[in-house]
């Protein structure tokens, strides 16, 4: 069983909001020196899904990432978690890839390796949240796909996916090869000890460039990028009793046309 997991490096989403800065002109988020880059959480869960398959079925997991040289660190972290190898696709020519262009490059990278039974992606990116790359890769490869997996089982050349839907779960069966996007419901990714992380840091990660894979032309453009301003005022409603406070609150809300 050969599994590919697509992962993406993002700015640590846990940083305080005041440390999140953007360059409005370049239409990009700015990485402050003290802020770390991490694996997108949804992608970490896709890897966890792959590792659970590997726990019960002999499998080989390859992690693929389109990104900067620094993304080798998250690939190595995936290896510390139990992936077997990783490939970085990196070139300045890929810099402005949107979801479509990213899907094209990843699909080409997967084709170049040409031996995967199952491809797993996070349900969406942890930064832009567009959620289009996984389905895009499947479409470009011409293989079936299921999104929002809460559980994945593989047996007899088929993958059975429990798909998370608004009012419960639906079970979908696909023939392999196939692509599945993984939702948070799959469960927490395992924690690799720092000993494993330091050990994996020695692993060489090959880089494929635009010479190996042709860049794709993006189909979308960021028109503007800004941090929405939010203003909040706090007012304590006075009153002699809870009932009076309640009716004063109701009057205030009506005055503000909130009710």
């Amino acid at each position, binding site marked *: 069983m050969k599994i590919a997991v697509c992962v993406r490096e993002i700015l640590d989403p846990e940083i*305080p909001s005041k*440390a999140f800065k953007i360059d409005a002109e370049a239409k990009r988020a700015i990485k402050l020196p*003290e802020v770390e880059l991490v694996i997108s959480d949804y992608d970490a869960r896709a890897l966890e899904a792959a590792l659970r398959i590997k726990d019960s079925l002999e499998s080989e997991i390859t992690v693929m990432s389109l990104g900067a040289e620094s993304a080798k660190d998250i690939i190595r972290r995936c290896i510390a978690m139990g992936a077997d190898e990783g490939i970085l696709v990196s070139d300045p020519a890929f810099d402005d890839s949107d979801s479509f262009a990213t899907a094209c490059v990843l699909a080409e990278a997967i084709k170049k390796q040409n031996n995967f039974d199952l491809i797993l992606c996070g349900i969406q990116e942890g930064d832009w949240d567009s959620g289009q790359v996984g389905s895009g890769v499947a479409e470009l490869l011409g293989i079936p796909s299921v999104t929002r997996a809460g559980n994945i089982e593989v047996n007899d050349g088929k993958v059975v996916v429990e798909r998370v839907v608004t009012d419960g779960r639906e079970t979908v069966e696909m023939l392999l090869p196939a692509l599945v996007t993984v939702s948070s419901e799959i469960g927490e990714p395992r924690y690799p000890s720092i000993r494993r992380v330091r050990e994996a840091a020695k692993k060489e990660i090959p880089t494929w460039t635009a010479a190996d894979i042709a860049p794709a032309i993006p189909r979308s453009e960021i028109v503007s990028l800004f941090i929405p301003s939010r203003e909040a005022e706090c007012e304590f409603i006075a009153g002699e009793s809870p009932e009076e406070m309640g009716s004063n609150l109701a009057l205030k809300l009506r005055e503000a046309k909130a009710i």
Partner: protein
Amino acid sequence: MSQEELKQDILDVVTNCVKCRFCLAVCPLLDITKGWQGQGASGITLAIYTALKWEVEREYKEALRDLLFSCTTCRNCVVRCQETSVGVDLLDAIDKSRQFFVEEMYGPMPQQKKPLEFLERYGNPYGMLPSERKEWMKGLGVPDYSEATAAEVLLYIGCTATHDPRIADVARALIQLLKAAQVKFGILEDETCCACPTFRLGEQFLAEEIVQENISKFKSRGVKHIVTLSPHCFDTFLNNYPKSEMQGIKVQHYSQLLRDLIKQGRLVLKSKVEKKVTYHDPCYLGRHNDIYEAPREVLGSIPGIKLVEFNRCKADSLCCGGGGGRMWADFEAEEERLANIRVREAISLGAEVIVTACPFCLINMEDGVKSVGVEDSLKVIDIAELILSAIEEQG
């Protein structure tokens, strides 16, 4: 230590357990769970023993993980075993089992992953950026510690005080006291975690990296005397840092320094505090390091104070529930919170104030007061805050 060596060590420790079950009676987990044997003390270590000896499936290991990481590491079982049975160090088995589970990627608890990741990324378990942590120091008028500043004492604030506003109040009170007593002290502007959460959560490799970083910081700045705000930092420096590397560095919890300053007449307690107070022994000060008297001597110096003891005090003290990495996790099997029990015990003593000397105890106990609904009749404060109110008229 390899996995095989860890496994052998765990089996060796637990093999000595004679299953007398005396430890179960004092395990705080049995106060808040259904009280099944496997939910506390030697019940946990025997379950781990069985799992290691006869290899169990992953799903059982996840259930075992929940038991293993629920331990408060309060050390009550170890003390009881030493006093009444064969003296097995169950906590050593718990610590090593956690290391084993983390290395096997079964542990820690899902909620405890973030603090470990934050420790690796930013040097603290709360995810504060280094610049954010420094903000706390602004306006305090405390110099960065170095020999050049002629500081005698390195005040080790700890991560919780720089993150939690309530504990920052305690740190400010302590700083005021040290200034009043004219102690020459400094703080590390680039202070990071002492490594306590990494040791408690079984992340040994990261712990050792942090220890080495801190030791080189202490050495390069010529640190001779460390005073910690938290009993957890105190215990880590004292018992987890290599003794050879810490040679020549005196480590104190601040309650010990306050006792010394009062004895030397450098802190004069003039104002009466006419309150009925009870002192809650933090596990990592009391049972882990036998410091029971210093805080009591400090309290005894306050004019007008009436100290009443919990029925479970000193070596029998009940854990607040915050030790062993539990500040970052909730456990489904628990039906009650230890701090709530402690608050009810204080109420039954007629105490008006619970005094403690640990950030975790303070946070948990204040939550307990709110959750039990006794905010009007019971306050929780730190010893430093109480002493500050007793010297306020001074100078």
